[in-house]
């Protein structure tokens, strides 16, 4: 019962996060590239309900902020003019021109609503977080599909046909497993052009992460296939003249499903982290397109690390996502039994 509640919570959390990433265009108050150069490292905007005269407003409002020193360190609210929060405002793009669609939140100029503050170029952290989630979460999912797909195919072939093919595939799997994973990832990344457009970089990153890690799932799948191949009902089907394709599709593949699901729940967070790590080190998706990794890269400067807590938000956002995925993996493993470890 307790386990079921945890799985429910985990699934709900994951659904929320992915839905938020999907609806980033609507939920984000600003375009991810829109800069407010006058407000670098602005702290999260405070929502007020009670104005300077002590009157209560049901609709929350914000004050415009400014930094009289100009150094971006001592922002002060201008309490003379409240700006009520507006809902379902028309969207504008990074240059301020109107685009199609609506946004959930907005506020009249010159006030700004930065619920999670701004980065060094005055870009809204919340908007970048939501748009960056698309990149980081999608990279994890796509890379998992790729690595599990390839691992499943090679593992099934090795386990089903055995002999020479098995030996070749498993020796090359050992080759891939002999390297520390991140070093291998870096070595492959080194083989790719350094300065590429963000969209290309994203695809390359997914390819690299997905293709480098096929060996572990392949070995696990091979083990399951090896034992499934010798079951009596498979032998019986073979005796009736079933083709290899039919045997794999009807009798072998379903056996590997539990393992694949458990592995997926374990691999997705690992690959999200791989994207974040590579982008953090400047080898992944590059500026100005936001990803959780390149947003965190700002923390490499000590004054950002120590002074602006809201720059940590992408890193903190990873924690609940990982917790949810691991809870899911645990539950799947328990359901699939000890064989799916």
């Amino acid at each position, binding site marked *: 019962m307790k386990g079921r509640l945890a799985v429910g919570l985990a699934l709900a959390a994951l659904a929320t996060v992915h839905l938020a990433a999907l609806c980033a265009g609507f939920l984000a108050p600003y375009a991810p590239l829109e800069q407010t150069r006058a407000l670098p490292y602005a702290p999260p905007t405070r929502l007020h309900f009670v104005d300077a005269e002590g009157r209560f407003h049901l609709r929350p409002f914000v004050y415009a902020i400014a930094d009289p020193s100009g150094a971006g360190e001592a922002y002060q609210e201008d309490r003379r003019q409240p700006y009520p929060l507006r809902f379902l405002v028309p969207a504008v793009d990074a240059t301020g021109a109107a685009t199609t669609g609506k946004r959930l939140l907005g506020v009249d100029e010159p006030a700004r609503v930065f619920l999670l503050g701004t980065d060094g170029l005055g870009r809204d952290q919340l908007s970048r977080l939501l748009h960056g989630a698309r990149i980081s979460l999608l990279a994890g999912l796509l890379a998992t599909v790729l690595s599990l797909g390839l691992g499943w195919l090679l593992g099934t072939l090795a386990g089903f046909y055995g002999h020479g093919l098995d030996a070749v595939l498993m020796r090359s799997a050992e080759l891939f497993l002999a390297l520390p994973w991140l070093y291998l990832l870096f070595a492959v990344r080194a083989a790719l052009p350094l300065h590429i457009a963000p969209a290309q970089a994203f695809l390359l990153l997914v390819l690299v992460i997905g293709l480098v890690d096929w060996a572990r799932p392949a070995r696990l799948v091979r083990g399951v296939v090896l034992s499934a191949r010798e079951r009596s009902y498979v032998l019986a089907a073979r005796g009736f003249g079933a083709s290899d394709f039919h045997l794999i599709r009807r009798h072998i593949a379903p056996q590997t499903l539990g393992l694949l699901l458990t592995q997926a729940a374990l691999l997705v967070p690992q690959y999200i982290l791989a994207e974040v790590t590579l982008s953090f080190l400047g080898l992944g998706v590059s500026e100005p397109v936001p990803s959780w990794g390149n947003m965190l890269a700002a923390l490499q400067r000590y004054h950002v690390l120590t002074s602006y807590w809201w720059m940590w938000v992408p*890193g903190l956002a*990873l924690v609940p996502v990982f917790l949810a995925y*691991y809870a899911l993996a645990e539950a799947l493993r328990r359901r699939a039994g000890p064989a799916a470890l």
Partner: protein
Amino acid sequence: MTRLARRAGQGLLLLAGVSVLSFVLIDLAPGDFFAEMRLDPRIEPATLQALRSRYGLDRPLPERYLRWLGSLATGELGYSFAYGGPVGPLLWPRARNTLVLTATATVLAWALAVPLGAWWATRRGGPVDAVLAGLTATLLAVPDLVLVLGLLLLAVRTGWLPAGGMVSVGHEQMLWGEGMRDLASHLVLPVTALVLGALPVLTRYVRASVAETLRAPFVRAARAHGIPELRILLHHALPAAANPLISLFGLSLAGLLSMSLLVEVVTSWPGLGPLLLEAILARDVYLVLGPVLASTLLLLAGNLLADALLLATDPRIRSEDA
């Protein structure tokens, strides 16, 4: 002994395979170290061509690989264009630093994980079980990157620990004891990050394997003989659980080495990680190859150590070997 020799032989073959694989991979990369110079109008294409042929970059792949193998024999491991010298002398001090870091972290992580996991295994279903389960699950979900950045923040904010690097300025002039203390204080931050990263997984594995042996019939028999619980744990269950744990030891090294790549870069520890990153960004082909191979070598050495330990602790394997 034959078992160890066989494993060492396999390791060498694997190393050769990895070197070919990475050589081919890196060769696929578009552009080389001199590609950036092409943009400089002051350098003539003929000069670039001459530079390439001087360093043998215009040769076919197999010839370059053989040349590289030849330079391996002299300990040079190819030529770094960015540093203008052979890779070997650059690589070994870095590999030593990574070894210092990961070895310390491995020893500490295991020294903590084994007692903690064993204790946890004896406390099934109590509050200790729940607390440890929650704690390890949370720690598992904190990404390595956030962990090391958080520790760095702590170090910078409080000033208790040096925030990066391996030694202080003037380390050469220090006396031996003083120098070691300086090194140790620099080790605390990266080692803590590595240990905290590895601990949840290790503790969970130790708990699982000790719990399994505690359910075994021979433990029940020992209990029936009235042997105290602590003695059962230390003398009967732990040695029996050692086999899967030592196998895990080899695997845990791979994880620690991977994580130390990131930790080294963030805390500016002068190990293999920063060298590799620098080499990738400079397109310095042979300098990329060096850290990758050195990390493989470290991993293989660790696995060999695990094998030797297994041989020393498990009589079943010894009799197989004879």
